[in-house]
């Protein structure tokens, strides 16, 4: 539908997206009207609870949703609210049966038409057929027909229709929505797209149909890989059961069996098709990153304390996966897997998380394995009398500059260690000073071992902390002191430039990073001056610059420090109404209104009220 130029532009954008698939698997993030799940649940329960006071509360909340959504209000929510409104009116006893029939009637007609209209294609399809397709009882369609073209039905039938339809909405919309059925694609493909395309924000607004199909295919592929991985897990558990204990089964696990060979063959086959996806699946929860129950099954005690780990994967767990990994870790797959691990690490904010720990340890294990095999030391080291097999059988030359980049893009407390590993293994090596400086910079960056997500909190010293190259440069410029820091910056630049030379393709991504890399907070002296100036300009006004010492960057829009997720948190208990009866604006125009020869208002057949009167009447109305 969109112009050639437009779609070309969009496609152009897509072309630059990181490899396909890395992102796609993440479900689409969209903006909705509720703050969080709690609010959604509260409204759903409220609407369907049967108590008309609570129902009214839920309807009131839906009125706020409608404001947020504007024209994009989900049809099902709108229809549900309209029908519930009828029920609330009904139970209030304020309306007579005829009036109720009219109310129910309109709500029912709107439901049938609006819901089925979304299914209409180019030529109109009979309503009955559409209704049958989506499982709306035919008699409800007949009721609609009766309401619009025939005699008004009896109230009892309307009530029944309302209940049936509400139930349909609950089953097809409310209880399926926001469930765990992550973004499955379905019959109505173009629906989502249209939704997404009108928005700039959706990650996928530029995804056009071919991409969309690709996305769906991707999901299927992902599922396939997962299935095989699950069968691998099951097989290993089965082996373990025969041995009664995890520690004893370590040896057996690495013995090849026909079942295991079949699994490996399958997954290698899939790898030919898309390595990225296989890597993604391996790193999704429950495989290389275990869930708690899996650890329990393997009798592994999980220690949240990172010191205990020493960058090692618990042995049993290592042995559990070693056969599979050894089978898969080809040169290209190793590169992809480690890069993917760094990417995951970047997104994993909480350093105490299982995921975080396992990612760091896996990266470390892989790198150590590569170091060993590349150094030509092919030995099995013994530990607790159990041989631990190596992950790599052959030398794996990797694209080390890329890995260095990936590593630096995912800063965390372990970065210096991982970086050191990479710098030691990499061939050709970086110059000694570059290595030193990179490591130095990395440890400054991850100073104090603060988790990635809140580097600003770590430093409570009065000095402005150093976070990005920009801020370093800024600092150098501003103060023109601390010589060796300045040099570090230059060296860093050197390194980056060299990277450019080696990896031309990387240049863009690098730029993206520096572009979006935020300078943390507003602690810049220059900004402070601007803030002070503004504060002075607001002297004596109701408007102020928020003075609280708040790390605003930790709080998303719509959330303030100390605010909970309580869905009732924004309810008002008191407010006052104000009418603008004597808006001078109006008065000014009144003269024009009354004098204007052309306005209908003064024609005999014109409006009975002036705008002013009209607003007086309107302001007297209370809608709620």
């Amino acid at each position, binding site marked *: 539908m969109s112009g050639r130029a437009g779609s070309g532009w969009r496609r152009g954008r*897509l072309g630059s997206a990181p490899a396909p698939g890395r992102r796609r698997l993440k479900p689409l993030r969209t903006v909705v009207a509720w703050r969080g799940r709690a609010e959604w649940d509260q409204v759903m329960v409220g609407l369907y609870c049967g108590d008309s006071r609570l129902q009214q509360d839920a309807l009131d909340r839906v*009125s706020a949703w409608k404001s947020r959504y504007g024209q*994009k209000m989900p049809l099902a929510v709108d229809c549900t609210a309209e029908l519930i409104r009828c029920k609330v009116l009904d139970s209030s006893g304020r309306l007579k049966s005829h009036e109720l029939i009219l109310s129910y009637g309109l709500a029912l007609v709107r439901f049938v038409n609006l819901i089925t209209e979304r299914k209409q294609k180019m030529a109109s399809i009979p309503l009955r057929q559409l209704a049958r397709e989506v499982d709306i009882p035919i008699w409800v369609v007949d009721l609609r027909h009766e309401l619009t073209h025939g005699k008004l039905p009896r109230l009892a039938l309307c009530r029944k229709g309302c209940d049936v339809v509400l139930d349909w909405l609950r089953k097809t919309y409310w209880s399926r929505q926001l469930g765990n059925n*992550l973004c499955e694609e379905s019959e109505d493909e173009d629906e989502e797209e249209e939704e997404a395309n009108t928005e700039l924000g959706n990650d996928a607004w530029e995804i056009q149909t071919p991409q969309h199909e690709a996305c769906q295919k991707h999901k299927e592929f992902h599922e396939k890989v997962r299935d095989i991985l699950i069968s691998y897990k099951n097989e290993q558990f089965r082996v373990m059961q025969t041995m009664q204990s995890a520690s004893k089964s370590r040896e057996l696990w690495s013995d090849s069996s026909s079942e295991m060979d079949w699994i490996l063959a399958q997954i290698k086959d899939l790898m030919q098709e898309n390595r990225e996806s296989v890597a993604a699946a391996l790193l999704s929860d429950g495989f290389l990153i275990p869930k708690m129950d899996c650890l329990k099954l393997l009798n592994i005690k999980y220690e949240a304390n990172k010191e205990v780990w020493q960058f090692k994967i618990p042995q049993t767990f290592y042995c559990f996966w070693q056969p599979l990994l050894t089978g898969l870790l080809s040169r290209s797959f190793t590169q992809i897997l480690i890069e993917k691990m760094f990417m995951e690490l970047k997104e994993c904010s909480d350093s105490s998380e299982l995921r975080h720990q396992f990612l760091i340890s896996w990266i470390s294990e892989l790198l150590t394995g590569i170091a060993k095999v590349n150094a030509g030391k092919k030995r099995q080291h013994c530990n607790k009398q159990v041989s631990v097999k190596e992950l790599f059988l052959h030398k794996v030359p990797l694209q080390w500059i890329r890995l260095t980049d990936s590593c630096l893009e995912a800063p965390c407390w372990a970065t210096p260690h991982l970086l050191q590993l990479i710098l030691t293994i990499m061939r050709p090596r970086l110059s000694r000073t570059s290595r030193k400086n990179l490591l130095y910079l990395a440890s400054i960056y991850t100073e104090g071992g603060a988790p990635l997500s809140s580097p600003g909190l770590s430093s409570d010293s009065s000095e402005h902390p150093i976070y990005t190259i920009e801020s370093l440069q800024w600092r150098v410029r501003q103060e023109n002191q601390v010589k060796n820091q300045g040099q570090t910056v230059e060296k860093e630049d050197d390194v980056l430039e060299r990277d450019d030379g080696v990896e031309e393709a990387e240049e863009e991504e690098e730029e993206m990073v520096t572009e979006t890399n935020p300078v943390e907070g*507003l602690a810049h002296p220059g900004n402070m001056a601007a803030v002070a100036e503004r504060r002075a300009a607001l002297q004596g006004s109701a408007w102020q610059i928020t003075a609280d010492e708040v790390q605003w960057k930790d709080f*998303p829009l719509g959330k303030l420090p100390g605010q909970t997720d309580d869905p009732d948190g*924004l309810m008002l208990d008191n407010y006052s109404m104000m009418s603008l009866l004597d808006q001078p604006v109006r008065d000014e125009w009144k003269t024009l209104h009354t004098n204007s020869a052309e306005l209908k208002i003064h024609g005999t057949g014109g409006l009975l009220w002036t705008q002013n009167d009209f607003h007086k009447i309107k302001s007297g109305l209370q809608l709620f």
Partner: protein
Amino acid sequence: MPARRSRPRRALARNPARGARAETAWREFAASFARAGMVPPAEPGLAAVEAAEGTAVLLLAPRQALTFTGKCRLRCLYGAVRLLGFAVASHHPGLPVFSPATHCALSLEALPGARPPAALRQLRAAARAAMRAHRVRRQARVKVMARFSSDCAVVLLEHLDTPVTRFLLSHPPLSRLFEPQKKEESSFTPEDAVLASVGIVKCSPDRGLLVSESTYLALEELIQACCAEDEGIPVVLVCGPKNTGKSTFNRYLINLLLNRLPAVEYMECDIGQPEFTPPGCVSLSSVTEPVLGPPFTHQQTPRKMVYYGQTSCEQDTERYLDVMKYVFSCYKKEVPLIINTMGWVKGEGLLLLIDIIRLLSPSHVVQMDVCDWKAMAPLTPEHVHLQAGLHTKGKQQPKCKQLDVGAAESWKCSEGEDASVPQYKLLYVHPEFPRAGVAGEARVHSGILRDMSILGYLGHLQYPDIGAVLPLHSLVPYQVPFSAVALRVIHTDVAPTNIMYAVNASWVGLCCIPDEVRCQTDGPVLLTQTPVCDCLGFGIVRGVDMEKKLYHILTPVPPENLRLVNCLLLGNIAIPNCVLVGQQGIEGEIPYVTSDYNYSILGAGKLRKKKHFKRKDFTFECDYT
């Protein structure tokens, strides 16, 4: 998937071709023939030379044009160039120029002008001096001068990076906004590399503005009217269906007028895609700078603005007219006025347009339409005179004659005329660019353009001297007590107890009502009707503090204006999704953002705009077959 474009390496640009010197000599030789008038100047490649890091000097032969996408700062060093109608000469300061892939590309064109009768040597010296003054490297100067002729133009292009553009580009969907759609030519000349290092890429001339004959004639006539002093100050109303190039026409007209006048005024009635403000506003702006880019690059504070709160006016046309009249009353008739209107010209929209013409009494109406007049009838003065509008009546009704004609003059721009006959000149414009007037064929979805305007506006929240982009949520907000500002939701009725659910993390108009905000309690003050009042700017309600009863608001409105704000209007304009979705560094859930909402479930989507289903011959009975 298209192959990844590799950006031209800067190294390439830095390294002037070794063979250039020999080439220079040859070109000089060729140029001497041209100068002597022996041969017309052959179409030479562009003479673009890197002047310094991130800047380039460009020499354009007479009438040579460069159509490009990208952004840069442009300064004319010698001669004159024209850019979307605006003539840039050497006395102009550096102009920011934006030509994103989403819009019609800009063309830079050397203006053949009358040269001062100076000797070529003097002219060369002047050009050389200008280049030296702008620190153009010697090597580059030599290269440019080699192609110099007295009627060429030399411009300096500088890399442009403003806080606003940085902010826009920091949003993933827009990060390639200023990059070319696709590489049009596979061969990459050194000149291309030089331009690319500045931030622009040459594209084919047909991506640029196509000015039709009728457009040209209309512009000619309007310029004459605006510059003639005896005929009163013109008020030009531009109308036509969607996607016929109204905005581009307006920009072109503004620029042409600014060549001759110090300022023009611009009244924006197209609340869907305003030129100088975020969407949903009717505004009056004084324009003194040429418009060299799409709206999101030149968001500015208008002289008068009212927040209507919707992107279309059909829900409340009366308030729309009220708002329009309110804004129009600020026009002092000192400089020409250009009025832009909505693209809604079907059915009631056309009637509304007739109301508007009647109420604003323009001196010229520019009606843009594709040739067949399918969308709208010609709006001749006679037609408008007779036809009833949506809220006004046509003149043929006898009762109108009884009305006081004298009083109606307050509506007339040109004084002393018979109030019953509209006096304006109708100018037809037939755009002739491909896809003109075809609905749904716009380059970019209107919703995306709106989001870009909002982002362009929010870009003013960025601090100028920091190289990096500060995410919105990291900025220190303003705070204001509930009781100090009145609140109104424009577009729908929200239960008062739940109003903060609508306000939180929403886009609000920061307005000023003349009434004092009275409040019995410390709770919020809710207005019972939507006021027609000044809007001073916009903000994001960053949070609502229910305990301290404070709104926290992020806004670029300067403090001296902010202190006047005593009313928040909440309309049907939303914060762009990418702002909410793209918040980085947040632990835990981001409010209003979910990945669990499934659009594929029936009923999960919005109400679709009525598409016209082709009903077959069967009627409702078919429901039962």
